[in-house]
């Protein structure tokens, strides 16, 4: 084992160690194996090279697990589902620049409040579209995704209504209106779980 000089105490006593690192939130704990440089003389701990990213990613993943937050990969998938850019998400969420980029990079977890809003956006494309427009975002690719979702929902509602009417050839106008209202209501409320599963 090669010992390196310590930049804190000058002793030639620094070596790489793999030790458990405990992350604690609200009384719950997650432990991960942490690779780091430790000085046997003064106890100074530092992270070198790839240890840095490994530590930051593992720490953020532990926080996400403890707080039930979406993973960095899930955040990326939600954004790409709507073909939104990272800067679009920052505008929609009113965060500072580069914030969403950090969350997707995986080394910094999002807040619980942001996580809840992101989940709402993921499950409701119409909310996501409204928020995009409210933030003044011009994104033709995303707009096309939202337009396609709307076309699909309209086609589905139309097909459902036709199918229901086919079983009731003698239905009057009031009956058609009632059926249409039922179909529209179902379509709106079915959109949430289906969008979430997509």
């Amino acid at each position, binding site marked *: 084992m*090669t*010992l*390196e*000089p310590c*930049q*804190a*105490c*000058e002793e030639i006593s620094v070596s790489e160690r793999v030790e458990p690192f405990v992350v604690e939130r609200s009384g719950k704990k997650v432990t991960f194996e942490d690779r780091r*440089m430790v000085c046997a003389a003064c106890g*100074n*701990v*530092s*992270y*070198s*090279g*790839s240890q*840095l*990213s490994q*530590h*930051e990613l593992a*720490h953020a993943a532990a926080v996400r697990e403890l707080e039930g937050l979406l993973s960095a990969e899930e955040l990326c998938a939600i954004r790409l589902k709507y073909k939104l850019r990272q800067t679009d998400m920052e505008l929609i969420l009113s965060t*500072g620049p*580069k*914030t969403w980029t*950090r969350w997707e*990079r995986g*080394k*910094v977890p999002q807040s619980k409040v942001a996580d809840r809003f992101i989940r709402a956006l993921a499950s409701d494309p119409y909310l996501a579209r409204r928020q995009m427009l409210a933030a003044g975002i011009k994104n033709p690719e995303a707009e096309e995704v939202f337009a396609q979702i709307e076309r699909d929902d309209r086609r589905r509602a139309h097909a459902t209504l036709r199918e229901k009417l086919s079983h009731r050839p003698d239905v009057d106008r009031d009956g058609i209106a009632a059926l249409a209202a039922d179909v529209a209501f179902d379509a709106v409320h079915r959109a949430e779980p289906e969008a979430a599963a997509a």
Partner: protein
Amino acid sequence: MAPHNPLEKVRRLACEEEGCQLFTPVLDELRRRDLDSDDLFAIIQTELGEAHFTKSEQTRKHHPTTVSDYYSIWVDDCSDWMFLKLLVATASDGTEFLVVTSFKKDIDR
């Protein structure tokens, strides 16, 4: 007065994670501010200049071979003046690496 560790070398080392070492309190401070090491390296590469340099001193606790440079820089992401202390050290295999020993709110500003 110029920094002891040339900024050109410091910026070059900050481009590669492999050429860098951070002390634990630096990572802790980044985490408190919802930042990560990539943000710190980006600050060093693109924002840190001689205008932010304040002084050079032999690294504390008598280390004979390195000199630390002290900087004070406004960081937008922190909304604060931040104190930054760094040095360039040489590993046992002869390769140079950047060590950031301190990154915290500059209470003297």
